[in-house]
């Protein structure tokens, strides 16, 4: 971001709008944190009015959504196709998804309207999403921004809707997982400070937040940052009582399900749209390609969550644990996929920096004895 802001004239318009978005996100995150403190103070005073800082944070988030959409528009012009060919472009699309999903969920979930204390949760969620957008964009900036042409298979009407549906669902599921993360941090620290949790439950939460590979890049910082906050709340006797916390946990669980309910239809549509596209491109609706399979695993995990919650009446830790496992699966499908053993011959490696996919991968090895040169 700083590099772009200091070399403004030398950067492409898409990079400029992205830098502005990042700046707005950082400012919005600061405003959200200020709002969280303000809302905490108001809740203790029994006031239900909204903090001006919270209004400012939401406004900044909405403006950031506008600027990042401008960035995508300019990128589209700069590369002459829907900008989701390189990993850098896809990650920016994920940032777009995060912002759009958060704006939608902010109003759809209406967390801040549930009561004075709830506004704090809403502020923290907005702050986490805005910081998430900043880091996503920073990661995109570390990758090549070179224009890459669309290979024939990607020149399809399915390209944009397939990507958009999946990315939006990933962002929404990511936000649902962030709510779960808040829940588990709350549960762990309240258990540690107030008691009332089993030792096994505490250990499981600790292991889940600290030791699970890949998801720990999000869970660990949030968990560690939450420690001083809870310690300070406990020291200053501001930590809510066990009953209030139990009610809060239950509400968080409900909210996370509603976030999931927004994302799941998009995930389903995105997954099967990919199959329709594969059918048109290769007359093969499902090739058991590892990217397809990773996405299918994600979908199955969420189907599992849905059935456990709706029919098995799973609530609390167990349901939210499955929801977080789904988010981990999303992360693996989205970012770790290239390292998976069966991904090396995947047809979905278009976004890799170092891989030039070969269209004829459908014809492996020696197709015929006399026509080796065709492969």
């Amino acid at each position, binding site marked *: 971001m700083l590099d772009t802001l200091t*070399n403004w004239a*030398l*950067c*492409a318009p898409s990079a400029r709008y992205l830098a502005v978005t990042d700046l707005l996100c950082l400012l919005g995150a600061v405003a959200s944190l200020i709002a969280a403190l303000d809302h905490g103070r108001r809740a203790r005073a029994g006031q239900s009015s909204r903090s001006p800082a919270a209004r400012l944070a939401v406004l900044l988030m909405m403006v950031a959504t506008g600027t990042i959409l401008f960035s995508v528009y300019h990128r589209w012009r700069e590369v*002459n196709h829907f900008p989701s060919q390189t990993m850098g472009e896809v990650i920016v699309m994920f940032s777009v998804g995060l912002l759009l999903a958060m704006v939608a969920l902010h109003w759809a979930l209406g967390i801040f309207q549930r009561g004075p204390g709830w506004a704090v949760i809403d502020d923290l969620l907005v702050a986490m999403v805005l910081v998430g957008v900043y880091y996503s964009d920073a990661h995109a900036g*570390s990758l*090549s*921004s*070179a224009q890459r*042409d669309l*290979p*024939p298979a990607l*020149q399809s009407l399915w390209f944009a809707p397939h990507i958009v549906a999946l990315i939006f669902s990933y962002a929404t599921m990511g936000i649902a997982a962030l709510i779960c993360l808040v829940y588990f941090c709350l549960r762990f620290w309240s258990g540690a400070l107030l008691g009332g949790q089993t030792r096994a439950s505490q250990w499981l939460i600790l292991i889940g937040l600290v030791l699970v*590979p890949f998801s720990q*890049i999000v869970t660990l910082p949030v968990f560690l940052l939450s420690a001083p906050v809870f310690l300070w709340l406990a020291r200053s006797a501001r930590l809510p009582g066990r009953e209030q916390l139990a009610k809060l946990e239950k509400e968080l669980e409900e909210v996370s399900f509603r976030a999931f309910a927004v994302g*799941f*239809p998009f995930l*389903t*549509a995105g997954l*099967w749209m990919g*199959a*329709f596209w594969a059918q048109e*491109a290769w*007359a093969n*609706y*499902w090739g*058991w390609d*590892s990217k397809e*399979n990773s996405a*299918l695993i994600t979908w*199955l995990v969420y189907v*599992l969550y849905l*059935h456990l919650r709706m*029919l*098995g*009446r*799973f*609530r*609390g830790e*167990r349901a939210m644990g499955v929801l977080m496992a789904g988010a981990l699966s999303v992360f693996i499908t989205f970012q770790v996929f290239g*390292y*998976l*053993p*069966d*991904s090396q011959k995947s047809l979905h490696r278009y976004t890799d*920096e*170092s891989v030039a996919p*070969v*269209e*004829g991968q*459908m*014809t*492996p*090895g020696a*197709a*015929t*004895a006399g*026509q080796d*040169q*065709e492969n």
Partner: protein
Amino acid sequence: MVDKQAEQGGSPEPRRRWGFGSASLVILCLLVVGQGVGVLLGAALRNELGDRAWLLGGFTLFGALYLWTARSSVLTFFRSMHTGVALVAWSAIAVCAGVLVPQIDGFEDPEQRVTAVNYEEQYAAFRAAEGYFFYHLLHLYGLGMPKGEVPPTVEEGLEKFARLYGKEEGDNRRKQMTTSFASQPKMADIAQFTARHDSAFRGFFDLATALELNRAYKSSWFATLLFLLAVSVGLNTFRGPPRKWLGPRKLGGTVTHVGLVAMLLGGGLSKLQSERGIMHLDLREGPKNEYFRYYDSAKRSAMPFWVGLDRFARKEWKQLEVHFPNEGLTSTPPSYTLWPGRELELDYVTKEDGSQRPGLRLRVLELADEARVRPPDVREAGEADGSQALGPLAKLTLTLPAEEVDHVDEPGSGHDHGPKEMPVFLAPTGQNAHFFDPGWGFRVMAHHGGGAAEELFPVADGQGPLLGELSLRVDLAGDVVPRTVPIHLGETVGVPGGYVVTVERAVAHFRLENGTEVVDERPLEQVRPDNPGIWVSITGPEPEGADAGAAAPEPERRLVLEAIDSEESGLQDNYKFEGLVLGFRWSRWNAPGPPRFVLDWSGGEGRLLGEDGTSVGITAGRDLALPSTSRVTPLGFFDNAVLERAIDFMPEKTGSDGVDEDFYLRAPRGLALEVIRNPDTPQETSQIVRLASTSDYLANWWPSQDERFALRFFENTRIMPFEWRSVLSVWNRDARGELVKVDLGPQAEREIRVNDYFQHRGYRFFQTNADPSYPTYSGIGVVFDPGIPLVIFGMYTIIVGTVLAFLFWPKTRQSKHNALASTDGGAA
């Protein structure tokens, strides 16, 4: 999927209550049974069981009878929520197993297995993939991986690169170089890691093979799992009266489940009936009805009709390179894909205030699918022409007799086979200094100005005939740029690293027939060098250390062809001394060949010097006295010539039956570009430049007058193409056994491309393969799969059902929430 009331004991008769653990265990047992039955059934179908097939039949019958008698318990099992959830969980785990265990090459083929013949090959692929995965898993976030640094010399080049091509291109090149330098030590570390754990990987591979985890999706246990899932979903969808599962609360779920069952049934049909493969079609060949199943040349299937290739074309991306020849950049310039309106800003200069501005802006005005390049007009350069002047140049006409025309035309190009005239330009400096008779009757070299023309003839140096240049690069010695040496027949060259290369034989036109070299018995000088190369023998370094006393290893015999890059083609990996990279360039002037002549026009007079010492004056318009059936007629000589570019853009064509005719053209493409110097400043100048993607008359190259930069326009064949298209035709045999074309409408109906296949009598044909060096070939994928419509219907239905479920969900949530409130204990 499951009605929870059944779980709560809604049924009057006492039922067994299934838990997740017990349901999972039973499913696991069923998978084992399914796998066993599948293996035995396969053996029975291959007649490998003999009389024991009756035992299998009896066992199956007994199993079916048992299930029938215990149908109430079976129904209870499948209607348990725990069973449904366990099946979904097992499905996720099964798919996961297939992601974490690399599937064997060719796993799409149901008959493909790991055998004694392919074991090592399959294991090598498995080990590489698992080694890569485990290495990264043990070095999360790059921790503990070796780092690679970008050398300072490369850093300097990157700064210059950024100044010339802009900050963004510079940053991207830096990221690319950083990744490249970091990946070298990392890949070496991964290779060591996999080698260190070879025995563990081998054990894992054997286990995966035994459990069919490395062909998971084609295994019987996986089919059993999907069958159980379909049964479970089916049995739980339509429970109770229709108003229950069609009511607003359950409609979404019902529709989703119907879609899922349809999809699984379609998948089952696909598994039983489908077949995939590839047809190799060629524009020069007739229709075919055979295709290779699963891309295996040993497995052929015949269709009930024939398919022909009427048209085929591969269209490349039109790209531009901008070179700055005086900047001394060693890295390749960026390739810019072009589209109308695209602007490129380059050659940044520093302003007085320290900021930078572009010194050059290029704007794409027009792109044409067909450009015609006419022979350029030539004139003497004036002062204003600057670097556009090419130096001395001779303009000639070559007239080929009818029998030689085939040598210069591509097969099937459709040219008249009569005498052909073509212009020839000879320039003593640069790449056009030589002219070789297409009939291989003479060789001509241009001369103008300094030095005696006679000195251009090669002088015998006491060695064998000079053949050309040999390039040598030794990877282990850290060579990046190859060393080039002139090479003679029979010569021996020592190479750093202890290699010794000896040229054993030279081949002017290398050919293979049935995998064997066709040796041309004629003397070397009589054979036109269409595909030249040399056979060399290579001895490796002397053994060291413990092997010092061992016998010297056998020399390697290697064919080095001018036309083949051993690294790009992958041949290098197969060589015994794979660390030694050789390349060869045949010298058509110096190597043995027909008589040589020098065309000299120094000092205002033209003459033709023969190698035998003859000298004949030449006059414009009169044929040169050369020993060939081809005629060469000089038209003009210039001391400092300028070529006047003549490029016409042809209008777009549309075929009468809806196809884009331009797509199938093999003509050069055209580009009109606005070149703006010092943009947005008072010194701004603008110029329109036309280029064509052919090297004929240098139509693809435009140097700026001040020699600051040069533009190259080309179609990039080294990356993925823009698109491939084929027009197919269908043929049937008539009563006389002759093939007759079936009328299937206009070409547009039979045109296929990626993302648009053609279907005929249940067979689907899609564009899958092509080769830029084999322009008449088109690889057509063939699929016969009656399950496709059902699967696609199922998928659409799932989407509709999910949307319905979550559209209705907010309305039903409150009542459900209330119903659950009384029993909400957070546990199932």
